[in-house]
């Protein structure tokens, strides 16, 4: 049997059997198709309580669904309309878990531009709230650990080590972590750009800004790549930080 308005029916709701016998009657053929209803049968009200327990999730109740955040969001506007911070907040508050899971592939795509948070007329810390939603989802095993979290950890580790990041190290380190081969000089073990398995798209992406770069800035960057810049007195600060983190039982890697 044909399905009309296919766009309204998610594939997972379609049950189709080649041969189907119900109560001893063979209904194969025209009646072999069932579309499961999309009725919301209940809310998972504990989900919101979990979000409210997160320090980042405290402002979620302030949202009144005006969608100022989504209208401002570059991810929603230029990447995928399924990324919709306003909608995620609504779903989390009612605990419509299946709807959140449907968007598991986009929900972690925030680029942290914070336009949403700066503009929200109700003072919702939108970006943080979404992080809290993600946290609860992964805590409850509703999504796999989100990829952006891996980058966050990598970034924080770099900061922790030197008190600041170094662009080249961060970029090439991340590329390496993604499984690409990065060519390094044999003495200092520093990455040499554009050699090895650097993918073509990345070369194009990097060459463009380098071409228009001020020569002094280019030299500075090269210098930083060779001699990692460090924040003054960072080692002492790092020791204090580590002690506090140990006491509080906090770590970058969850």
């Amino acid at each position, binding site marked *: 049997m044909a399905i009309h308005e296919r766009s309204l029916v998610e594939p997972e709701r379609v049950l189709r059997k080649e041969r189907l016998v119900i109560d001893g009657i063979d209904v194969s053929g025209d009646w072999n198709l069932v579309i499961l*209803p*999309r*009725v*919301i*049968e*209940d*809310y998972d*009200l504990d989900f*919101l309580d979990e979000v409210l327990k997160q320090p980042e999730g405290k402002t979620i*109740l*302030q949202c*009144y*669904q005006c969608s100022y955040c989504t209208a401002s969001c570059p991810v929603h506007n230029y990447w995928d309309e399924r990324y919709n911070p306003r*909608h995620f907040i*609504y*779903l989390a*508050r*009612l605990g*419509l878990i299946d*709807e959140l899971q449907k968007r598991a592939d986009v929900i972690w795509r925030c680029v942290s531009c914070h336009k949403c948070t700066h503009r929200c007329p*109700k003072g919702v810390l939108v970006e943080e709230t979404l992080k809290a939603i993600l946290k609860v989802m992964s805590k409850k095993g509703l999504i796999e650990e989100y990829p952006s979290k891996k980058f966050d950890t990598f970034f924080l580790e770099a900061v922790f080590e030197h008190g600041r990041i170094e662009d080249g190290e961060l970029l090439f380190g991340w590329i390496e972590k993604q499984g690409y081969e990065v060519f390094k000089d044999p003495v200092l073990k520093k990455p040499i750009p554009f050699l090895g398995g650097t993918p073509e798209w990345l070369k194009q992406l990097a060459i463009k800004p380098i071409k228009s770069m001020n020569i002094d800035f280019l030299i500075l960057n090269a210098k930083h790549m060779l001699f990692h810049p460090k924040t003054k007195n960072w080692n002492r600060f790092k020791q204090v930080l580590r002690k506090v983190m140990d006491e509080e039982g906090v770590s970058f890697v969850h």
Partner: protein
Amino acid sequence: MAKSVLVIGGGPAGLGAAKALGSLGIPTVLVEKEDKLGGRPVIEDYHTLIPRKMKPDQVIGPFVSEVQNNPNVDVKLGTEVEAVEGEAPNFKVKLSNGETVEAAAIVVATGFQHFDPKRKGELGYGIYPDVITNLELEQMFSREGKLYRPSNGELPKRVAFVFCVGSRDRQLGVTNVHCCRYGCALSGLQGSEIRQHYPEVNVFCYYMDVRTYGTWEYPFYWEPQEKHGVRYVRGRIAEITYNPADGRLRIKHEDTIVQRPSEVPMDLVVLVLGMEPSEGTKKIAKMLGLAQDPDSLFLLPAEDAASNITSNKAGVFIAGACKGPIDIESSIAEGEAAGAEAAAFIGAKVTA
């Protein structure tokens, strides 16, 4: 005999008018068909009044005692107006107790009545005991002091407020297309009260839009959500059913934000009732020849008047909910204004 003013109706607006007239020293006759002053809030035991979260006794009590103790005001309880003859400033008003009152001006404050939710059969009021009105919820608070499910006396786990029952609804004919104006705010307050006293009860408000206008936005929309965790779900409830398997109600609607149909279990459903003109309002309108809205039958102010308390008939002033949905503090203010206008109309000289 000094020129007197007749005030019809002893609710918030009528009391406001009678108090103003009495304190200006003008002989006033206040006619109330019930045997008690105070109108709907007092007679029907409202619990907490919007917008200032005061009790009916606190708000209306002082007006009642002032009117009753003022020698200028003649209060006639259990009395209705039967006929009006003449024109301003010489009205001859026949009352149901056989008296005739001569009045130079009339203040009409005949009020409203609550919508009868049995007219919306799909919402199951009168069929399922756990579907109640917001008026009954008020009375649950004020008379019994506790929240419970009428079907079994237990505390509900979930309470749903169904907005706009008998408001903004062409299905009822042309009479109920207006907004009730108080419902969103009162539901916000009732929801907050429930959450304050029973934090374990989840409260849901099913709305099309939330009309807590002006300064009501914060206390009756933001606060219930932010401070008390009342949940707002967009979608008008289309049907309420009962599931014998778990003894709970199901409210059927489309969640218009998620764009999915919903049938969610609820323990107690509160219908937020609309307002209609009272029988008294319709009767007085005919008697006095006052302009009415052709659809809702609420009284209309004169077309050329800037103030909405001026009626189309000289010497007749209209105040409060007989003109359409209104909150109590505005009703009182309109009553006071109508009283002052009536005093000016009869040319009363006020001396210090």
